[in-house]
């Protein structure tokens, strides 16, 4: 059996690895360091605020995905099912609960600290609520609900912003003050927000580099690494800015050299298909799926999954001049908080802006938030753009739903379809 090929390490990746390593080390020692720990979700996370109070954030989905990447999620899911959870429900939740039942050893092999606060930001997914209700039963710690309205009409109204901002100021801040023992420092928050905005600007430059031919990045398989720091614990910190500056420079250099993206087997030689990808990846088989792409010369020039933690390419930036309001708008602007027509518009825009040959939907069994409606997205996008759409099915972390042969077949016929369209 061939060992899994290692991803060619660039400086940005080394930086990210070091940041993650240190963060998990800090988490493992949180109690000794006297640090309070806040569990919260990636979409709509209030990282800047958590850092303002000197607390440490934990994102359960990030743990679940890391565990998926390390192929341990299957066991944890079975563990949760042994404890009465249905096969039918979101496997991210089960992976997390299974991990907890097995001693809460995090992805780096170190024990995760228990939360001092569950910050239930209700952005873009209803299952989040059940997830934290389940965690509350386990930890019996304080919990605060931040209800984030959905963009049912495809826009954020001033009333919606005011509602979320007031919840932050009247519910979240006082509780954070109490738990951290620190008074709220609006200047510190402004600094974190300004730092976020700088990192976001560089990230957008990275996304937009995919307009080049060849694209220097893969905005799905590579993209999930690129969003690591800004989606997880680091947004608002100087290290995050350094990461995105470095990444941007690397990418710009590749543009200058007319180089394609780096794959686990080195730089992509030839860009044959430019795709937009909708839907999350399947972590336990991430490399297998990626290989099916790069072997065919297929590059994702944009993707929606890399926007679940913020639609920066659509213009959003954290804004130190409107601190709480911009946090509120951030929560409401994450990709899965957009209604279906807005999601379609967004993907359509990506198809045109990045001059893609087509789009591919990876439909995830776990995730109703993404998946319910994707077949209509497929029909509509094809109708509106005339570009071919592909459709595969898998799961985020449940390896039982990945059928390599089936997916490969589908992808092959999809690539054939694009070719046929080109020569028509």
């Amino acid at each position, binding site marked *: 059996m061939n060992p899994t090929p290692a991803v060619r390490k660039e400086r940005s990746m080394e930086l990210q690895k070091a940041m993650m390593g240190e963060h998990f080390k800090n988490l493992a020692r949180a109690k000794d360091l006297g640090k309070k720990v806040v569990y919260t979700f990636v979409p709509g996370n209030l990282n800047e605020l958590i850092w303002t109070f000197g607390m440490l954030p934990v994102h359960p989905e990030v743990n679940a995905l890391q565990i998926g990447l390390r192929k341990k999620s299957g066991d944890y899911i079975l563990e949760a099912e042994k404890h*009465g959870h249905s096969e*039918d429900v979101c496997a991210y939740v089960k992976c997390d609960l299974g991990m907890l039942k097995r001693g809460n050893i995090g992805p780096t092999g170190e024990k995760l600290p228990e939360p001092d606060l569950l910050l239930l930001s209700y952005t873009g997914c*209803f299952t989040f609520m059940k997830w934290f*209700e389940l965690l509350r*039963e386990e930890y019996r710690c304080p919990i605060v609900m931040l209800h984030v309205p959905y963009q*049912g009409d495809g826009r954020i109204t001033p009333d919606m912003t005011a509602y979320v901002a007031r919840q932050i100021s*009247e519910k979240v801040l006082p509780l954070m003050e109490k738990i951290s023992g620190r008074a709220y420092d609006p200047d510190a928050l402004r600094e974190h927000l300004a730092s976020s905005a700088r990192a976001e600007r560089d990230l957008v430059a990275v996304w937009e580099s995919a307009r080049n031919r060849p694209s220097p990045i893969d905005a799905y398989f590579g993209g999930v690494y690129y969003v690591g720091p800004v989606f997880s614990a680091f947004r608002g910190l100087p290290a995050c800015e350094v990461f995105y500056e470095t990444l941007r420079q690397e990418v710009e250099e590749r543009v200058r050299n007319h180089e394609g993206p780096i794959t686990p087997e080195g730089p992509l030689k030839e860009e044959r298909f430019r795709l937009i990808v909708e839907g999350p990846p399947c972590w336990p088989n991430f490399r297998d799926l990626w290989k099916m792409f790069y072997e065919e010369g297929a590059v994702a020039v944009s993707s929606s999954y890399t926007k679940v933690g913020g639609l920066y390419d659509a213009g959003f930036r954290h804004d130190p001049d409107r601190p709480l309001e911009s946090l509120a708008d951030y929560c409401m602007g994450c990709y899965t908080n957009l209604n*279906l*027509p807005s999601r379609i518009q967004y993907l359509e825009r990506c198809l045109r802006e990045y001059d893609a040959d087509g789009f591919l939907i990876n439909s995830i069994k776990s995730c109703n938030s993404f998946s*319910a409606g994707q077949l209509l997205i497929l029909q509509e996008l094809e109708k509106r753009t005339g570009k071919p759409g592909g459709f595969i099915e898998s799961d985020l972390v449940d390896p039982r739903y990945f059928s390599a042969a089936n997916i490969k077949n589908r992808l092959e016929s999809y690539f054939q379809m694009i070719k046929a369209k080109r020569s028509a």
Partner: protein
Amino acid sequence: MELNDIVRRCEDLYHDLDLTSVKEWKRRTGGKAVGFLPIYVPRETVHAAGALPVGIMGAGDDLEIIRGDAFYQSYICHIPRSTVELGLSGRLDCLDGFLFPAICDVIRNLSGMWKILFPDKYVRYLDVPQNFDERLGGVFYRQELAALFQDLCALTGRPASDEALRRSIEAYNENRRAIAELYRLRAEEPHRVPTYEHYLLMRASNVLEVTEHTALVDAYLAAARRENRPWRDNIRVILTGVFCEQPPLGLIRALEQSGCSIVDDDWVLGARYLREPVAAEGDPLDALVTSYLRRGTPTATRYIDEDAKGEDLIRRVRTLRAEGVIFASPSFCDPALLEAPMLQRALGAEKIPYTAFKFSENSGQLQVIKEQTGAFADSIKLWGAA
């Protein structure tokens, strides 16, 4: 009205997927009709705008799904596909608008699908607050309701009048009173109110104008009290999990036949979501908001920040002297299926027996479930615990 006539009328309404009763109402009154999905919408606002609120709860096993399946992957529950089927087959054409309350990601996304599939219809996603503080969630919800009421009045061409809202609140309070009596009678003397009839009466609330439904429930109550029906040696159970996708009628019948008398449930929950009358004086939108915040029913899709999980269920078990709980969850329903283990743990701690199964609105294989609930009933009868 005779009992049989009432039940037959409800059966007709249940099977009337073409909504002929709604079309007749529109013809008779010249009013508009506005559909809504589970669980809860403030029907008072629709009614006060002069429209008929019409609850759509899928199509049970009455409809062959042809187009709906093309919109949903196999691992998504059934109700959205039958709803799309109803829409695309023209059966919902008589609805001038459609409301999609915040309940789960599937219904949330369906609201956007509806906008695309039916661009000429009024479609509104109704965000209900998960923050129950008057000054926060209350303010937000009032804004939502005011906008909704304005929209509905624009649709019907009626002025947005507080007085009309108050009258509608009163009409729905009357309906809540009648429904509460129906539940009370069934809990006290289950043999008088067979589950099948109870369910059909509740389903009728989805399509009948509210005063007509209240009259029907009152007539049923009077008839059921008169009727001599044999007492049944069934166990008393609470059914939970059926707040959205509904079990097929056959399954509802099978539960009772297997020896379980349902003394409380959460089907057609929207009709009794507010547990007490809404204030009919003062600002009517404020009254609806307060009722939602303070007197809404704890259910899987409502965030409960103060009570412990399961507290409400246990309270109802005790008050209604239920001997067990049946968890019936729609397949692939995250809210119901993720809620169940928490409630089951709470029941376990109180030594309250329960059993659980999954269904879909068009489940055909009822025998296995019937055997399971039958065994559950037997074990309770024999040993007092499952």
